[in-house]
């Protein structure tokens, strides 16, 4: 990799981002990311940047693939840089983008599709159904996760989720979630058979993952975890819960709808290069 250089801390990246925020670079971007969760990636030299006259490009190396983020001045500059960047990539690379109808003047979607192929699309769903906390009886099978659960949670996630579009959390991110966010598990003989993870920011909770071990599916564990989750968040300050679900996953959409989630009409698309 010749053109990208490592950036070593969140504060350094923030300086770069603050700079681009106040110049025309912001015309075209996909910077919908929480960089504060990248602490370990900075420490391990996995965050790289490439600055040009047209843009700030950020590459995040993951396990076997990269995420590409950008903040560009205009479409022509974007195209110019992208040709150089694609030539320099040494791993499959993902770009998350958003349907053009959201901002008509940004034609990024059309251009990226000529270089990247569509890997998957997601719908956003939201729930603000406070009725879910009425008459709820807390379930004593559901426990707060601890660090000892991490290997088993990872094992569950690796079986079920796709590394490219589900962004399976690594060891450090799971530690962060357990320490700071909402992580619940159901154990059976010390074996984690179900796990639910959500993050909370102010009045909004972002539902991240739910998974049940194959052997324990269709026994209602998913529903009791979801009900408990909605009860827990709404009894405090949270007023809405959001999630992203694959557009073609009709059974998951049906499942979330059953729990009061409604389609918001917002979409995101995962594009991939080099696969």
């Amino acid at each position, binding site marked *: 990799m010749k053109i990208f250089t490592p950036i070593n801390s969140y504060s350094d990246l923030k300086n770069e981002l603050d700079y681009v*925020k106040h110049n025309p670079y912001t*015309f075209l971007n996909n910077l919908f990311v929480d960089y504060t969760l990248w602490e370990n990636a900075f420490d391990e030299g996995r965050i790289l940047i490439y600055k040009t006259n047209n843009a700030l490009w950020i590459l995040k190396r993951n396990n076997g693939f990269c995420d590409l983020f950008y903040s560009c001045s205009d479409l022509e500059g974007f195209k110019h840089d992208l040709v150089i960047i694609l030539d320099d990539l040494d791993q499959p690379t993902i770009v998350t983008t958003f349907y053009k109808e959201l901002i008509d003047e940004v034609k990024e979607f059309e251009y990226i599709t000529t270089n990247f192929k569509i890997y998957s699309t997601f719908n956003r769903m939201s729930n603000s159904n406070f009725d879910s906390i009425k008459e709820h009886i807390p379930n004593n099978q559901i426990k707060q996760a601890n660090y000892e659960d991490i290997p088993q949670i990872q094992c569950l996630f690796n079986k079920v989720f796709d590394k490219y579009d589900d962004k399976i959390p690594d060891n450090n991110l799971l530690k962060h979630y357990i320490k700071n966010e909402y992580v619940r598990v159901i154990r059976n003989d010390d074996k984690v058979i179900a796990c639910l993870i959500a993050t909370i*920011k102010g009045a*909004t909770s972002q539902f991240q993952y739910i998974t049940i071990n194959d052997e324990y599916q269709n026994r209602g564990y998913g529903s009791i975890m979801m009900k408990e989750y909605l009860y827990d968040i709404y009894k405090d300050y949270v007023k809405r819960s959001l999630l992203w679900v694959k557009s073609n996953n009709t059974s998951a959409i049906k499942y979330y709808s059953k729990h009061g989630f409604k389609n918001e009409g917002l979409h995101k698309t995962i594009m991939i290069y080099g696969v």
Partner: protein
Amino acid sequence: MDIIVKILQNIRPEFNFEDTVDFFKEGMLDSFDMLSLISDLEKEFDIKINGMDIIPENFNSLSSIKDLLKKYGVII
């Protein structure tokens, strides 16, 4: 100002936008809601918001939205 509140509550009916200092810090809006908000403001006031103005700082409170609209000739 009422019309802005109405647009915001149409996007996120569960929140009270009138008493909030920073919509993003309070978790009432995120980047995706911002895109919906931009689209609704453009339709309501028949304007086209420049990409350079699409930053959270311009949409994080009623007064910042009002200031942005003023820039596009919309007086509320």
